[in-house]
């Protein structure tokens, strides 16, 4: 296992001496194919559903041709099947016959090619600089976790040529290793932008080779940079990659607009989370799993994260551990443990529990002060209440008052805050008039709150630990981390438990209704993922 210190040293060292090489590959047929596709898409009506389906299929087809490193006639690429399907749609949409014929003939020419020039270029460059002792990585074209260009297949077969590349699919693969070189086989698209940023800015390597067809554009993905104050400009030296930009395509601007349109459509179509907050929505992130399912997860939520035990990280034996991590800490490629209820909703492990009637009674009793807080909120806002409490010596901000008023929080976390709040509610005349001794009421209620929290924690821990222990036993010995297909994750775990690998984490905040959180939607047949 590589220590944090070694990784840090390498990060600082690599980033200061990073070299980037761009290798251009000429292939007139592939250039023409891209031009024809672009011409067709220009004719499409973006609001029409059939046109959108055609655009998506053309986009996937274009991605395969530009990115694949295996022979074009390999059945796994399904180029002829794709040609037939696209042709039918072209005819249905009455696209110019000449254009259809041009498209068909170009696909056939590409299909019949005896070699893949991009593959050959990578092979020759790799032979020149081959050092078997060093670890090389490769970033292929991955469409939101889907692998239409059969990149996995290429990586597993490259050993036949005496090479070994690590197939880099997510950021977490980069952080614990030092790669002597990372190969990039195409320009970044939106789904791979975060991964590309990580390749360039995490300091995981000191050498990046980019392989592009002549018509492909490339620029280093930008990062958000800290502003350098004029007073400190002589002290601080920013990293300065050479201004590497490769852009010689005649159709670049329009093509990039087209790509933007299609990629934006993807996430909009897939989850439809709003970018605008309303009173009834909460912030969330959409997470797409590799099997095509997805769900909204609350921005501040936690989730059970499955990881190999530290002592087994570099071994073939597999034992796992589970821990709660913040949703925001998740990365593409992470494994999470989910639990669905009978309706297919994910159970929020943090909040769920087997509440019985007694529990509900206690809960009512220990939260009845919330009615008084509601009453106070009719005349004062959160910040006014926070100010009143601060004046009493209890320093809180308005966000806390809002939390206490919400249903997810039973009571303030500290005794001082709780007693301060109760005293304020009493002073403002909002507490039940039967309460004669407010200090005694606050003390007794606080004790009940603490008892309730402890009992819930104990019960929850007991139930969870039993279920999870069984689960860990079931997957002991299975190497999840070498699993290339989703089938490997379809264990019968019982208890409605699911293990899922994250394919895409949409880092844009989507505002959704609480009822939409943790709800699994099935996207296996979604058109972009076919």
């Amino acid at each position, binding site marked *: 296992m590589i*220590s944090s210190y070694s990784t*840090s040293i390498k990060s600082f060292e690599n980033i200061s001496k990073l070299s980037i090489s761009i290798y251009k590959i000429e292939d007139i047929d592939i250039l023409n194919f891209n031009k024809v596709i672009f011409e067709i898409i220009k004719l499409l009506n973006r609001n029409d559903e059939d046109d959108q389906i055609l655009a998506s299929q053309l986009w996937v087809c274009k991605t395969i041709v530009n990115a694949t490193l295996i022979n074009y006639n390999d059945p796994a690429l399904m180029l002829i099947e794709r040609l037939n399907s696209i042709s039918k749609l072209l005819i249905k949409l009455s696209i110019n016959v000449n254009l259809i014929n041009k498209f068909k003939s170009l696909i056939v020419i590409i299909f019949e090619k005896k070699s893949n020039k991009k593959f050959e270029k990578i092979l020759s460059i790799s032979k020149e600089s081959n050092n078997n002792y060093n670890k090389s990585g490769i970033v292929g074209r991955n469409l939101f976790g889907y692998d239409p260009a059969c990149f996995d297949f290429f990586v597993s077969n490259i050993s036949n040529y005496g090479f070994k590349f690590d197939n880099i699919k997510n950021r977490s693969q980069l952080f614990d290793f030092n790669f002597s070189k990372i190969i990039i086989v195409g320009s970044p698209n939106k789904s791979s932008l975060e991964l590309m940023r990580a390749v360039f800015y995490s300091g995981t390597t000191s050498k990046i080779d980019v392989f592009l067809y002549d018509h492909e554009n490339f620029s280093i993905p930008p990062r958000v940079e800290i502003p350098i104050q004029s007073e*400190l400009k002589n002290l601080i030296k920013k990293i300065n990659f050479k201004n590497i930009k490769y852009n010689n395509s005649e159709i670049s601007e329009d093509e990039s607009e087209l790509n933007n349109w299609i990629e934006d459509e993807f996430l909009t179509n897939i989850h439809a989370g709003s970018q605008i907050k309303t009173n009834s929505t909460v912030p969330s992130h959409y997470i797409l799993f590799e099997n095509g399912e997805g769900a909204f997860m609350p921005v501040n939520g936690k989730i059970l994260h499955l990881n190999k035990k530290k002592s087994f990280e570099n071994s073939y034996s597999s034992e796992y551990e589970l821990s709660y991590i913040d949703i925001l800490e998740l990365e593409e490629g992470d494994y999470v443990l989910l639990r669905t209820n009978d309706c297919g909703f994910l159970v929020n492990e943090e909040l769920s529990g087997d509440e019985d009637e007694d529990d509900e009674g206690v809960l009512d009793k220990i939260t009845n002060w919330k009615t008084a807080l509601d009453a106070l909120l009719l005349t004062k806002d959160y910040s006014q209440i926070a100010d009143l409490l601060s004046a009493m010596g209890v320093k809180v*901000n308005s966000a806390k008052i809002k939390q206490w008023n919400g249903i997810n929080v039973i009571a303030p976390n500290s005794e001082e805050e709780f007693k301060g709040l109760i005293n304020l509610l009493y002073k403002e005349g909002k507490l039940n008039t039967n309460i004669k001794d407010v200090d005694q009421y606050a003390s007794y209620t606080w004790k009940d709150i603490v008892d309730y929290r402890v009992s819930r924690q104990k019960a929850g821990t007991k139930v969870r630990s039993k279920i999870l222990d069984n689960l860990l036993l079931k997957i002991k010995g299975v190497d999840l981390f070498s699993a290339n297909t989703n089938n490997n994750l379809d264990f019968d775990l019982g208890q409605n438990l699911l293990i899922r690998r994250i394919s895409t984490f949409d880092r844009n905040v989507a505002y959704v209704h609480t009822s939409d959180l943790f709800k699994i939607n099935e996207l296996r047949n979604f058109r972009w993922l076919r």
Partner: protein
Amino acid sequence: METQNLDGPISFCKNLAIADLSISSQTYTPIEDWILACIYLGYWAKSATKKDSRQITFVVLPSRKCTAAFVALGAMMSSIFSFEDKLSWQKISTLAPGTELFWKRLETGDLSVGKVVGIDFIVSEVVLKLTVTKSRKAKDVNSIIYIPKNQFHKFQFSTEKPASEKKETSLTSSIAFLSDLLGDLSQGWISSEGHDLLLITNIIKFNFSIEKLFLKINDSLVKPISIENLLSFEQLGNGKHSKLKISHPKGIINSDSGLVILDGPNSFSIKEHISPDNDLLIIYDYLEFKEAELDFINEVDLISFSNSELEKTFNIKSFPVGFEFCTYSIARR
């Protein structure tokens, strides 16, 4: 890192060598420039504390895995240099009756625990009156003792639990190491009341990041020391004495340390809950720094005081390539 005429600890730190004992080679190598820069920035941030203005410093690096530890080390060095033994009769005598106190009789090393009763006069002499709740001598328990003001220096008082024997050893080796590195240090600093620094971080990852990392001073007879021992940190809220307190973002964060280090986005997310009496030093890596953080910096910039002399407060020519930071001074309230 280019330095110029350094008198501060950064020049001493050039004598440091580091070894990562988790790897097979286990050899000591000179410390890297970025480590020196982290120590320096921590030192600067702690020294920059002013009564009326709050210093907010944001540093963005290629990796932040081990950096918080070195920044904390630098801040601790600043504390040592600026330490004045302020443990006074005046402070103890203003404690409220019932306050729990721990004290050690310096002559014998005997430890006792008790509670403040108050200040009294015995034959016109001012005395501190205490009840003993725990003592090595059973007969002393529940007794009242009086400590005259003129005998006060014979005791070491604290409102924090004294360090365990193991911790005491670690603190002693830490101060021995730092004394050898930095020169004549006030021995009282390590046992002085309160903490000087709060680090908010993911505690498990932080511990892992410094595991088996050792520092040694070139050409010195002092034994190498692990960074864990050198920092001798304790979790905030456990009542145990330490000069560096550590907490996680959802843990206790009330501190009067003067400087709080926020290690990463999760720690940064609780910035509003940190008392404005504390300065902030925020550590991010390149990939974590996003538009929201930039917005925060721009907002701070708008309300900050301009300081044309800022560069002069840094006694170096430049930081290593890729070591990016900005720092602003704003009103405390």
